[in-house]
């Protein structure tokens, strides 16, 4: 019933998808450069790589959501019109995204058949197709769910009411329902329990057994080893290794992902760590976090490494009081510290540079001046009254101290480059004089020159006695600027490495949770 190919043997039909000379650049930065890649029918191709290696771009290019700068993509021999998701879908590409684009208010059945008609309506005349075929939709939705191995869901329930793992399964069923030739699975098991994960892997195998091709983006290397017919490693947008299952040991994959080890000496942070404890957290817990124990000394730069969803941002937000904690104790400078709102944390001497500048840091349409002085405004006011030019002076000092390049303090900050915007956000907090600075992806979307300046700022802040906790998905960055790195996985700290013991392999292994984590989670389960 689910035959993808008609009756000929899979190999005779040629590859399911071919990428030739595909390149994607944003300005001067090339994020993907694949001279040639074939996805064969009947094969599960796993793609692994660090954050920013080009995995998402590769998927986007194949599924039509990203149009490549150059190159061509053939699906079953037909050229894909770039940047046309609908065309990709028509050619037989189905993508199961990690962030589920489901319509929360619609029922399970309606979501599963979103954008197409039920079979019954399809066969019926034109008039019938105008009407929504309720019973046919429900019937087909039930079949689809049974097919992917999900039972006991009421297909009339709104998707928004279902727990995340079930929603992931529905997203998979939705992709499956399009009868794809190429099924793209983006870390499909990251939000699933072991039982559902097994179902998904089984589904992928069934798909290839029927002559389909699967592109599987994996983050758990043990899982990749388990399922792959072939492992492709991306690093810096390049295809650096193409491994058979026998070759693809976890050590080998990590080595290929990481590339040559960086020399630690270049750009090492100056020694500024003191013995005074600034932050002390004991069994800190929050939704999806902890228990976490952590200590930061004045002048210390501590990195937080971990995969997406490992709890890096959550840790920072919980310390800041931006996410409610559920338990545990924290002390700041030896005094109990329980912020219920970021305002409490700011008053106690904590600053946060959030991950998403546009959404979480800036008033984009307002002047540079407003953005620079947001955290110091009360201090610079006279009984709440801003003297004319009062905040102008402060913002002038901030943009000078940080070397922000711009026309005028009065221009909207949205006009500035990412690096200069970020420097304004840094200045906002440095001038507030905090004891603890929390940085979440401090150099995301920042060009190389500004990056170096931001590293310098962080070094200087530490030398002034600030404790800095910096979360980043760029391992190179943490290795370069931190005195110590803690590795998070599933909301906990699973490794704590001083600079002498920095090793990319070790961090990746801990983050991927292959050894230490499995041992840890078994112990707590």
């Amino acid at each position, binding site marked *: 019933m689910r035959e993808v190919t008609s009756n000929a043997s899979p190999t005779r039909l040629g590859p399911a998808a071919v990428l030739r000379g595909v390149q994607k650049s944003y300005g001067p930065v090339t994020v993907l450069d694949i001279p040639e890649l074939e996805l064969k029918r009947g094969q599960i191709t796993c793609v692994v790589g660090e954050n920013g290696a080009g995995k998402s771009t590769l998927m986007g290019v194949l599924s039509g959501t990203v149009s490549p700068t150059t190159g061509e993509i053939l699906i079953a021999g037909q050229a894909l019109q770039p940047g046309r998701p609908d065309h990709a879908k028509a050619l037989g590409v189905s993508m199961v995204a990690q962030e589920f684009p489901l319509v929360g208010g619609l029922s399970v059945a309606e979501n599963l058949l979103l954008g197409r008609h039920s079979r019954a309506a399809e066969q019926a005349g034109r008039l019938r197709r105008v009407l929504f075929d309720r019973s046919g939709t429900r019937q087909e939705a039930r079949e689809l769910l049974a097919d992917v191995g999900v039972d006991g869901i009421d297909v009339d329930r709104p998707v928004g009411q279902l727990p995340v793992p079930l929603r992931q399964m529905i997203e998979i069923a939705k992709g499956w329902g399009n009868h794809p030739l190429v099924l793209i699975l983006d870390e499909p098991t990251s939000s699933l329990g072991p039982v559902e994960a097994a179902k998904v892997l089984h589904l992928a195998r069934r798909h290839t057994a029927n002559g389909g091709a699967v592109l599987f983006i994996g983050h758990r290397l043990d899982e990749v080893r388990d399922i792959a017919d072939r492992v492709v490693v991306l690093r810096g947008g390049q295809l650096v290794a193409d491994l058979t299952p026998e070759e693809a040991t976890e050590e080998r994959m990590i080595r290929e992902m990481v590339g040559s080890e960086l020399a630690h000496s270049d750009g090492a942070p100056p020694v500024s760590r003191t013995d005074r404890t600034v932050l002390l957290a004991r069994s800190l817990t929050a939704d999806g976090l902890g228990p976490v124990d952590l200590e930061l000394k004045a002048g210390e730069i501590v990195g937080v490494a971990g995969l997406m969803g490992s709890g890096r941002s959550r840790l920072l937000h919980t310390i800041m009081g931006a996410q409610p904690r559920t338990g545990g104790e924290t002390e700041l400078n030896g005094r109990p510290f329980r912020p219920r*709102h970021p305002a409490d944390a*700011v008053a106690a001497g904590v600053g946060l540079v*959030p991950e998403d500048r546009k959404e979480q840091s800036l*008033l984009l349409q307002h002047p540079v001046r407003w953005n620079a002085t*947001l955290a110091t405004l009360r201090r610079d006011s006279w009984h709440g009254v*801003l003297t004319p030019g009062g905040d102008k002076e402060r913002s002038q000092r901030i943009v000078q101290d940080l070397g922000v390049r711009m*026309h005028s303090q009065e221009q*909207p900050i949205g006009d500035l480059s990412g690096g200069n915007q970020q420097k304004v956000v840094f200045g906002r907090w440095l001038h507030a004089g905090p004891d603890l600075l929390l940085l979440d992806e401090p150099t995301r979307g920042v060009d190389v020159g500004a990056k170096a300046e931001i590293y310098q700022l962080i070094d200087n802040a530490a030398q002034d006695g600030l404790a800095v906790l910096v979360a980043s998905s760029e391992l190179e960055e943490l290795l370069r600027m931190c005195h110590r790195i803690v590795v998070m996985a599933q909301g906990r700290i699973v490794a704590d490495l001083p600079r002498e013991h920095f090793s990319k392999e070790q961090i990746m292994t801990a983050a991927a949770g292959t050894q230490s984590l499995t041992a840890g989670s078994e112990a707590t389960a």
Partner: protein
Amino acid sequence: MTTQTTPVTKGAGVTPRRRLRSLVETPEVGVVVACVAVFVALALARDTFANAVNLQGMGFDLAQYGLIAIGESLVILTGGIDLSVGALLGTSVILISWFNVRAGLPAGVAMLATLAITGLIGLWHGIAVTRLKMPPFVVTLVTYTVAQGVTLAITSGTSIVGISGFFGDIGQSYLAQIPVPLILFAIVAVAAWFFLERTFVGRQVYAVGGNPEAARLAGIRGDRRIVSMYVTSSLLAGFGAMLVLGRMGVGSASGVGVGWELQAIAAAVIGGVSLTGGQGRILGIVAGTVLLELITNGLTTLQINSNYTNIVLGGVLGIAILADRLRAKHFSSRA
């Protein structure tokens, strides 16, 4: 590219051009220019338009619409909307009269009691929006409906006569030929300007409306700012009611406050207040109110059938919203 080809013009020509551009992009400028143009045109068309009596009449109108327009704008700046201001003003007229005449309270006490009630209603709006996460549109729509009902229930459609002369002294008198309500409105406008431009709490209101998450993570207690703006909006409706009552001389509900919230929203939008929050200035809001008043009054002066008034006002609002959209689009394409 430009540095290579035009180093000279860059130094010499960009700054004035930038200044002109930023002037054109400032939404307030357009409204003020429109006010002046409409005024001059009407004054030339009919000499009765710019005479003292008509100007004074416009002054009274301006005060009553302007007060709620300022309150409305403060709420819109936080990213909300207050649909209740008009109906609440109507109810407040009746409440003041009822306290003064039926309950026999002195004028000042009747006024304070009414302000207390409107303040509590504003507090409810703020708490419902921030704590209960109810959409502002819905919360204030409920108040709008209930307030109209209360007005009818108290009066049964009749007027309350015999109110204290105190109200007339405020609502109908002049100070050096200037209507007192207009002076009160000017004071409120200056206070609002000072609050928004010269206090850090005012700046925080902009921050909360412009990007609530950024404001929260920067340590701003946005909920408090939002609540206080809803309270202010309701208080201004109650305050405006006093002026309206004084002008009418009787506590009547017919035609008072109905639809005024839409006038207030229109004035704010015409004045460059962004309905998504975080953008807009008092100068623009005042100019927006003035423009609406000039047009309404001008149509009367020109003896155009009043049935057409709303068509014209709607057209002006449409143009203002379109201009706002184009500005926003232009901005986002640059960002």
